[in-house]
């Protein structure tokens, strides 16, 4: 697998799928746009490695969580657009609640109430 050089904030394992699904919630998008969206929305803290983006997209497609089709981009070029499927939405919901619980637990542990 691709060795990721240290980025501004390293992505936790397994979170890329979650981010892709979340990004696609606002509408179909192609790979480049997905990467840019994640980068911009995280205020450039997260940079998606293209080396892992495309394998992840195809993996999600294989699982049936996203669907892909060739469409014309805004610049009139053929591009592969990804859409989230109902199955993907379900997956996103469950992943998100898991992530929320994890983040809450981490927050509680790292910032105990007596310190704040």
């Amino acid at each position, binding site marked *: 697998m691709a060795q990721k050089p240290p980025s501004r904030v390293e992505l936790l394992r397994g979170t890329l799928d979650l981010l892709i699904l979340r990004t696609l919630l606002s509408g179909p998008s192609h790979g480049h746009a997905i990467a840019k969206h994640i980068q911009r929305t995280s205020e450039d803290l997260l940079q998606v490695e293209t080396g892992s983006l495309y394998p992840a997209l*195809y993996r999600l497609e294989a699982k049936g969580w996203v669907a892909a089709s060739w469409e014309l981009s805004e610049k009139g*070029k053929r591009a592969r657009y990804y859409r989230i499927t109902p199955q993907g939405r379900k997956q996103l919901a469950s992943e998100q609640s898991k992530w929320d619980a994890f983040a809450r637990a981490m927050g509680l542990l790292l910032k105990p109430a007596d310190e704040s």
Partner: protein
Amino acid sequence: MTSLFRKFTWWLQRRRKDEELREELQFHLANEADERRADGLTEDQARWAAHRELGNVTRVREDTRMLWSWVLLEQLAQDVRYGLRTMAANKTFSAMAILSLALGIGANTAIFSLMDSILLRSLPVPDPQSLVILSWRTPSRNMHGTNRHNNSFNDPNGGFIGGFFAYPAFELFRKNDSVFSSVFGYQGAGDLNLTFRGQAELAKTEYVSGDYFLGLGIPPAAGRLIASDDDRAGAPATAVISFALSQRRFGGPENAPGQSILINNLPFTVIGVAPPEFLGADPDRPPDVYVPMHANLLLEARDYLAETYLDPMYDWVVPMARLRPGVSAMQAQAALAGPFHEWARTADPKRQPEDVPTLVVREGAGGLDGLRRRYSKPLYLLLALVGLILSIACANIANLLLARAAARRREIALRLSLGAGRLRIIRQLLTESVLLAVFGGMLGVAFAVWGIRFLTLLLANGRENFTLGAELNWHALTVVGALSLLTGMLFGLAPALQSTRADVVPALKESRTGEASGRRFRGLGLSRILMVSQIAFTLLMLVAAGLFVRTLSNLGAIQVGFNRENLLTFQLNARQAGHNDPEIVPFYNDLRTEFSAIPGIRSASLSNHPVIGMGTSGTGISVSGGAFNDSSILTVGGRFLHHYADSPADWPRNRRARPARLAHGCGRERGVRQKRFR
């Protein structure tokens, strides 16, 4: 499963998928470059930046491609193709390796097939796991009774173990139907005279109890099999014949039922034929004819015989039983131990309390273990020897591979430096060696077929009706497969590890031919160890083989104490053939006279037991006032002889009615010597 299905459909259209991915990445790069240009970079700079950002495009494509390909499988196919090319390029090496492996694997498979049929296979009956063998065990041989000493064996767990029981004990087991669904037994009747349509032959006969076939649960090949009602005193004389006999004498099993045959000149009716795969409860001694147990009252017309069904001191029935569902052999033993002990104690009051036999119930799926007892040791020995042969072959090939690895060092160093993972190269080298082993295994199967035939011949040792059903079955083929893979790994792993450890730079600097430069190849240490162990093992094998051959030739040249040249022996039984008491003595005497008269026969003689046989019995005679026990009498001529006068009056009276053996020899008789042998 949908994801697996999708993967498969992707795999089917993998070329298109590949093209799509390429286009998609192209689009990504173009977009990225556009953005960079918008940031004010020049055309070239923007393109390079986009490339830098994307990283190794080939890598990304490979990573993604994994989703629609079975990478391991495809790499394996690549490795196999490459391995085949390498093999074709080194024909001599490959042929040598494959041949030596084929011999090793073939020998192992042949021995294993025999072991499988002798030691591991179950009787060809339904649910063999529920069959048990009943036997008794005593701590010492302080026992009385008939048949007890001769038919008990040293038990590896201590004491003596025997499988023959008195009929009352058999009845006792039969009454205990809480643990057994059926109890059945048999007794060998030996070779009886079977006559059908005027032609006689000796047929191995077995007395079986009425539940024998029912308890074993085998179906008839034709007609019906012996049932409980056939096994009682006064029942019509019936017989079941083996499938082989039905083919040999009746022209097929369907013709046999209803035919009447003579067994020892007594009329019996064939009621059915046993199935072809069934060779009796003891596969060592496949009977030709099965008759009901109580038929012994007819066949062995002796006064005391009826009493043997009542005599608790006369052991003669070999019992087996089928457990009820859910009952284990241990439970059956526990349930029967008390009653049997009580019976044994009252049956023989003279026995010391500690010598009273205890009952042993053992797994009987494989049938009775005459064959096992006889052949398990030589088979284990053979297996150890052929295992050694295979390991020598492995060491040999490993050594050759090491030598070749030294020559291939440059190739491997090149691949390592081009970025091939060490694991990947080891995998490829292992594929090559396993490929060799697989070819060796395939050829080994051919050797095994031939080896099994040879071994069967060797073990049968001249016995005509040796029916050891050894054959290549899926057990043996599984073993071949496993052996091939294992040996391939075994002899491939060390050289593969060695050769991928080579330092890349010096190896690359070597000249193309791969000749050694300065420092010696590190694999040499290992190859030396292999060489030494190979020589040591080979020496060991040579010594063993030498001893074996020596023993064989010694057996051939053993001094038996008489001249074996031009000596012929055969046996016949006048009583079984229908001669009656008063005429038997003249019959044998006439026979001898007639034989003596045949031109080319120097002398002919009769003996109660053969000169070399399974055992003798004799009565004492007196020569010149000294008594000799266990004497046997015959004339052989030449250097040895024991001779008595020609007149029938001199024949020992007590043996006149016994079967006689006739020997005629061509030695020159020289005076009279006497010799005693047992």
